[in-house]
């Protein structure tokens, strides 16, 4: 047995980990339990089992319309942001840049991860308004591309840094042009990383409220914002039902990342 690893400290370590998981997951479990409540108010413990609030939520046009908007927005932002992010990562990793410039570029491109969403939202609102850009969809897509980019850049950059340059050289000696090398070797080798970044970006875009709130207009909303505004005037378990569906979607995304990339590798910077 290792020194200093008494059975007691091992017990406390396990108990600590267990408590942490409980703290993180209990609210999610509560939401799911509430969502199948047969009563009319979100109550714990629930008053019987029913899926009726899922029906209510899914027949509410404020939810379905905004859910469609959110899906479309996340898809568009991911479709635009992914190739941009990959290109940016190549530029940072492979451009002939002084290391200070490289570090600065990386920090700028990854800054949406650190800057609070509200700040990004306000900044975008001011900038886009003064540029005369008033179309909600255009503003939302621009804003959400900004949200997707750092995730794609981060995973692609990590994968590029581990990339064996001999792979491309081998392709060259075997007769591949630069373009063929890129499409047949480099991008396929990076594909899991790019996919993981894109899936994560999609989820972030889909869940976002802080940036979107500054960019929508009265006729265009997103699901997280629709949930928030619904809750200001109503208090019934249909919100829990919608939230449960969001939890399911996020979980599916996380599983997809785990499958293509390994979640540990993704989260460990």
């Amino acid at each position, binding site marked *: 047995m290792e020194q200093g690893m008494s059975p007691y400290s091992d017990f406390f370590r396990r108990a600590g980990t267990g408590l942490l998981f409980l703290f993180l997951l209990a609210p999610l479990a509560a939401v799911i339990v509430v969502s199948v409540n047969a009563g009319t108010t979100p109550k714990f413990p629930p008053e019987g089992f029913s899926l009726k609030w899922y029906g209510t939520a899914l027949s509410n046009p404020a939810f379905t319309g905004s859910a469609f908007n959110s899906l479309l927005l996340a898809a568009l932002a991911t479709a635009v942001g992914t190739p941009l992010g990959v290109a940016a990562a190549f530029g940072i990793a492979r451009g002939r840049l002084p290391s200070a410039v490289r570090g600065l570029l990386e920090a700028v491109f990854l800054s949406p991860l650190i800057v609070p969403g509200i700040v990004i939202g306000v900044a975008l609102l001011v900038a886009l308004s003064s540029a005369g850009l008033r179309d909600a969809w255009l503003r939302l897509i621009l804003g959400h591309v900004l949200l997707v980019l750092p995730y794609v850049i981060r995973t692609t950059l990590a994968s590029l840094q581990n990339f064996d340059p*001999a*792979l491309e*050289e081998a*392709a060259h000696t075997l*007769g591949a042009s630069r373009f063929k090398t890129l499409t*047949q070797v480099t991008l*396929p080798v990076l594909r899991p990383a790019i996919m993981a970044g894109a899936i994560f970006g999609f989820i972030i875009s889909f869940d976002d409220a802080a940036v979107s709130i500054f960019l929508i207009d009265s006729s265009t909303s997103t699901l997280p914002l629709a949930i928030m505004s619904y809750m200001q005037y109503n208090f019934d378990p249909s919100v829990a039902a919608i939230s449960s569906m969001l939890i399911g979607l996020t979980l599916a995304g996380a599983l997809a990342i785990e499958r293509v990339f390994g979640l540990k590798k993704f989260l460990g910077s």
Partner: protein
Amino acid sequence: MAQVTLTHITKLFPGAATPAVDGISLVIPKGSFTTLLGPSGCGKSSTLRIVAGLSKPDNGMILIDGRNITHLSAAKRNIGMVFQSLALFPHMTVAENVAFGLKMRGLAEAERRPKVSRALELVELGHLAERYPHQLSGGQQQRVALARALVVEPSILILDEPFSALDRKLRESMQIELYRITRSLGITAMFVTHDQEEALTLSDRIVVMNQGRIEQDGTPREIYGAPKTRFVAEFMGLSNFLPAQSRGSALVFEGVTAEKTMDAGVPQECFVALRPEGLSLSVAKPDGPALNGRLAEAIYQGATSSYTVELPTGRRITARTPDCGLQPGQDVWVSWSPDALHAFAA
């Protein structure tokens, strides 16, 4: 198969004080297995990469069968290369890896298939064609890299320390396999290693490099048996260097005179080296030249023992001979077979 000619190849990396490759000229005959041998950092890889077209020389020319290819891109040189990291494409199966070069040459699937299976059979991997590289052992991955380079029927095969990551046993069996394959195909090969045993095993010809230059160029027998410089001698495992004077056809060192036919290049003030395996020890003074000293150390090593003798000048020489039962402290005579004695410029 082709002849490769390097003329005055020079490469100076930006910021480096001395050239990595310093005016290398070399002809590699058709069908020969030539090894660049030298310590790490002496410019072997840089030279190979210039031949492969992965790096541009500052000066000099590369000819293949008399054709100047110095400015041809790597993709158009038809050179098969095995990299130190192997560089197998991780997202492709073994068969797809091997087929890659054929695909890039525009061969249709139906033309590729028989060539790929023949290449895989050559390296005895036919049964693993549908595996991915990460599902293979180190030795199997080596063979895939070799098959991938050979399947395009390259004019030369280039290998940059392909076995350096393998353990000794696997390395030896891969060496034998590479020997068998290259000789059966009669291919022109350029091999790089820093391991002199590997070079001796594989090569028709060894080019010993030092600081971007060629130190000596010859058959394994010439390089091992008649090293021309102290650098080559040391690199080939020679030891027991002693200062000496050359006088006509004789060498004088440690007060002893020994007859030796020498290269014209050996100056009056020179060095001799005595190959440890060519020395014998005795208690009685032998006929012919011998060095007298005190046995300082005797280490039993199985097939041979290692004896270190301290000479009256304080210099030490080591002999490796079958165990002869001598004890440290004894007064002994060291004699040598004629081909164990070498002389060099300092």
